[in-house]
């Protein structure tokens, strides 16, 4: 990490260290806001997509409309989502930013919940039924644990995507690190933009690594199986 920063610094005026050190609290504040917006979006997205995914999986008739709708919505640009929400939920509000960010995570997460549940082997379901599990018990004790890898894969993509998208919510006064980008652009000043870019990439990388670590802890068998084959 240090050598990466050094590399950019040696490229000349792209990064002015004196600004970074004098503005460090401001930078940390934006970084914190960035993390907050991301965690909130993925958290709410998860809370909505889990029941929605289960519903779409339990009621096969609902699956094509739910999965299809998420597919279509995924094509709608994030900035358009932001702009569609702004007139309704207020121009400079966290709510507007979250509406857009959460919608985006939904599109990724719902798909993965359904795919994860659908990928549970029929044998495992039969065995659970044979043991006398009720439908709810099957879901909680068998299907969910087995769907975890797919779910975590979805959370990974959703988190990394959201980290990038948060920058754009700077247009409505949110944006975390995105505010540094706006500042750098309006002042013709490289450093804030480079700081935002580097921290954004690092944040995505760290979040990704954390979720991969979580997967190793939660579903060690999935990892072992992959290594074995």
């Amino acid at each position: 990490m240090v050598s990466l920063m050094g590399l950019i610094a040696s490229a000349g005026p792209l990064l002015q260290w004196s600004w970074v050190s004098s503005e460090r609290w401001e930078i940390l504040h934006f970084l914190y806001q960035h993390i907050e917006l991301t965690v909130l979006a993925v958290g709410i997205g998860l809370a909505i997509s889990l029941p929605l995914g289960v519903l779409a999986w339990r009621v096969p008739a609902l699956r094509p409309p739910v999965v299809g709708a998420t597919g279509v919505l995924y094509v709608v640009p994030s900035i358009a989502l932001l702009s569609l929400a702004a007139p309704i939920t207020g121009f400079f509000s966290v709510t507007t930013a979250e509406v857009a960010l959460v919608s985006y995570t939904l599109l990724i997460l719902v798909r993965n919940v359904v795919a994860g549940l659908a990928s549970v082997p029929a044998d495992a379901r039969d065995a659970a039924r044979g043991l006398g599990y009720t439908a709810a018990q099957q879901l909680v004790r068998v299907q969910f644990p087995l769907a975890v890898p797919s779910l975590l894969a979805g959370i990974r993509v959703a988190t990394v995507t959201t980290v990038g998208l948060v920058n754009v919510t700077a247009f409505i006064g949110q944006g975390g690190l995105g505010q540094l980008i706006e500042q750098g652009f309006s002042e013709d000043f490289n450093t804030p933009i480079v700081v935002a870019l580097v921290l954004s990439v690092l944040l995505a990388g760290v979040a990704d690594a954390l979720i991969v670590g979580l997967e190793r802890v939660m579903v060690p068998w999935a990892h072992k199986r992959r290594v074995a084959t």
Partner: protein
Amino acid sequence: MGFLNQVAHFFATGSNWTGSGGIIDQLVGQVELSAVAITAAVVVGAPLGALMGHSGRGSFVVVNAANAARAVPSFALLTLLAIQPAIVRLQDGGFVAAAIAMFALAVPPVLTNAYIGVREVDPAVRSAALAMGMKPGQVLRRVELPLAAPLLMAGVRTAAVEVVATATLAAYVNFTDLGNYIISGLANQDDVETFCGAVLVAALALLVDLAMAGAGRLLTPAAVARPARRVPGGGLRGAGP
């Protein structure tokens, strides 16, 4: 006058379409910018990815570079480029900055999919082609590339949709495209303008997605077409309760 009436009025006003910097100008700008970026990404990314897939070398570089590039926020890259003196000096600096940023956005999906597409060609097919006396270059062009076409086209489609959507940001660096209404609407808290801009961008993105899906089907050799429809991971079909 209700909100929807105002929206209807906005779209019914001729000068909003044909005026200087109007919807037509913006649409042309957005399509031009996107076309340049995607074409460049295909010209660079597809051969590079295919060659790497063919030779089997460089997979580590491809996968990691593509992942890292995806994490770079386009907004940061775009603004950073736009304030560089060398680009500011140009007459259409906004376009150049945006084209480079969109190119960077489009290359990873094209490159990775070309790589995986060629890489995943059945080794038996490759051996058969070699046994028929084809040279390595012929194997790549006449066997591997046609078989990789569905995946490559899927990568181009992803890239195109992402670029068309993200090109909206170019309005922020003073390039005239469909982002104009959105950026100025958000800044002035004009809900009608913001909404109309968003509708236009969303419609264009959906249209491009459909067009690319059609192009993908047309460019895919008929014999290869069927396996391509398989859902990746196989999760969403069958296996239902």
